[in-house]
């Protein structure tokens, strides 16, 4: 292996070496959990710094299977930042629940490795393996505390439906291989125009889309989302709903990038994607109204957000793709912060946080209430925050691509969803009761929350900077 290749894939090497190192530490060192915690934080910070420093060096490695630099490094940055935030706050959560083991970090790292591979892979075989690595780690993480029935059930559901969906994904890849005679995404993207004339390829693409819809939590494989997000440990839900979605959309964007060239006749596939988007948006935001459990509500909202993001893919232009990436970045920060706020109110895995737990939070913990309110405003897409621009870009892309009806339905769905987001704010600020809520906060959690808040505000103030960055690196 040449030195240059070695440097190109250094982020992946760091993460994989850390995985192995943590396993050795866990095996040979008695009080391993704290050491592993710090080891993972250091290696994630290294990954973050390195992927930003080398963002301008774009390369294809290992017979065009692995891309490095540019948009890939941007994804590396987002994925490892999300994992870092989750890991920092997870330690105290797990200590509170008295279930703090080194395995948690090993599994987070192996899932991160899978996600990074999904974002950087340019071969469908590698994409599939990355996806499986990520999913298998998530299945275990969802059932992390095997003594808690909630965790067991969440992981069983996640596992059965996930394996079912990966069957569809695999069939899709097989048919794409059958029509394109290759699994290399770059070759497929080059031939996209001719391949779309083959029914075999279109069927493969549709099956691939159905398989991915499981991972991005959109219709038709959305039934698992509320149960799994509710049943898993809250910090795990935070990671699944953000980094998992980002990685799956990264792979989707890479596979569908060929559709952005103007001469492609993408209509059939675009139509299917837009149906999925409409169904996800409406089902997500209407069902969320009925939820009183906060994690379930965020789960349904996650389905709706997947729908908004699919609009960007359906519009099949550059703005749509970069809009989706922008949306994913904002969404990661918003959702991590919301889930961590929920996790602060839990002291074991079996606690369920409902809307009533938020009553009067503004009086007892004004800062946490303020952050929660801000996240809810941002999630609902109100103007000055980052969440607004995420939606704005994908809707704009849809209008540009003559899919105005998608944008209209998106706006309607946003209006519906504003109801349940703002309800949380109303509960916090305009209702009081005597009962005093405990918030188990530590400085680590505060740090994560402040960081997320700053990012969401920053993305709302200067969205153009980030969008330009993304557009510059899209091939």
């Amino acid at each position: 292996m040449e030195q240059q290749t070695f440097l190109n894939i250094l982020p992946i090497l760091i993460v994989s070496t850390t995985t192995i190192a943590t396993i050795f530490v866990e095996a040979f060192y008695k009080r391993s959990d704290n050491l592993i915690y710090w080891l993972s934080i250091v290696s994630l910070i290294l990954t973050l710094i390195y992927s930003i420093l080398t963002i301008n060096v774009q390369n294809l490695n290992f017979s065009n299977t692995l891309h490095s630099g540019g948009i890939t490094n941007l994804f590396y940055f987002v994925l490892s930042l999300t994992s870092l935030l989750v890991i920092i706050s997870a330690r105290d959560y797990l200590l509170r629940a008295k279930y703090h083991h080194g395995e948690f970090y090993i599994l987070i790292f192996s899932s991160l490795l899978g996600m990074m591979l999904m974002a950087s892979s340019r071969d469908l075989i590698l994409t599939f393996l990355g996806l499986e690595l990520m999913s298998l780690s998530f299945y275990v993480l969802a059932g992390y505390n095997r003594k808690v029935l909630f965790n067991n059930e969440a992981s069983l559901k996640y596992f059965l439906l996930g394996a079912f969906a990966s069957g569809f994904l695999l069939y899709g890849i097989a048919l794409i291989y059958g029509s394109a005679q290759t699994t290399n995404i770059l070759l497929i993207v080059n031939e996209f125009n001719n391949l779309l004339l083959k029914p075999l390829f279109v069927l493969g693409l549709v099956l691939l889309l159905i398989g991915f819809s499981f991972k991005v939590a959109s219709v038709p494989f959305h039934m698992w989302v509320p149960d799994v997000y509710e049943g898993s440990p809250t910090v795990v839900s935070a990671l699944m709903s953000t980094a998992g979605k980002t990685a799956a959309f990264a792979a989707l964007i890479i596979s569908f990038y060929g559709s952005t060239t103007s001469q492609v006749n993408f209509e059939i596939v675009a139509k299917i994607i837009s149906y999925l988007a409409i169904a996800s948006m409406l089902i997500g935001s209407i069902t969320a109204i009925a939820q009183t459990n906060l994690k379930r509500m965020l789960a349904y909202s996650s389905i709706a957000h997947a729908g908004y993001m699919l609009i960007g893919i359906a519009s099949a232009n550059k703005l749509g793709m970069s809009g989706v990436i922008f949306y994913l970045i904002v969404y990661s920060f918003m959702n991590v912060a919301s889930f961590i706020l929920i996790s602060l109110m839990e002291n074991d895995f079996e606690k369920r946080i409902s809307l009533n737990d938020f009553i009067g939070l503004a009086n007892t913990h004004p800062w946490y209430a303020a952050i929660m309110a801000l996240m809810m405003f941002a999630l609902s897409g109100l103007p000055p925050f980052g969440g607004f621009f995420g939606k704005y870009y994908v809707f704009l892309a849809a209008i540009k691509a003559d899919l105005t009806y998608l944008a209209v339905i998106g706006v309607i769905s946003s209006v519906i969803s504003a109801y349940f987001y703002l309800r949380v704010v109303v509960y916090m600020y305009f209702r009081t009761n005597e009962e005093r809520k405990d918030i188990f906060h530590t400085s680590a959690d505060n740090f994560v929350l402040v960081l997320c808040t700053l990012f969401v505000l920053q993305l709302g103030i200067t969205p153009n900077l980030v969008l330009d960055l993304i557009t510059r690196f899209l091939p």
Partner: protein
Amino acid sequence: MIPLKYYLILSAAFFSIGIIGVLTRRNAIIIFMCIELMLNAVNLTLVSFSSFFGDSSGQIFVFFVMAVAAAEAAVGLAIIIALFRNKLTINVDEVNIFKW
């Protein structure tokens, strides 16, 4: 000489039988076995494309699918064991703290 489409329709049939199994059976282990059936149907598709094109990468994909299936079996059956210990059932209809 058997044309390619016969292999494809056969593996599509296996795949569909797997789907029916997943949708009808309630025993978690049997559902998982039906998923294995689906994965194997895809393997047949991949191998037949690979042979008809004379290109090895399809067969290598099957290689990886097998490795993934092994790891998936390890993880999935561990999950089933963990659930069984707490609940003494693996009927997915009874796994209903949440709505299925």
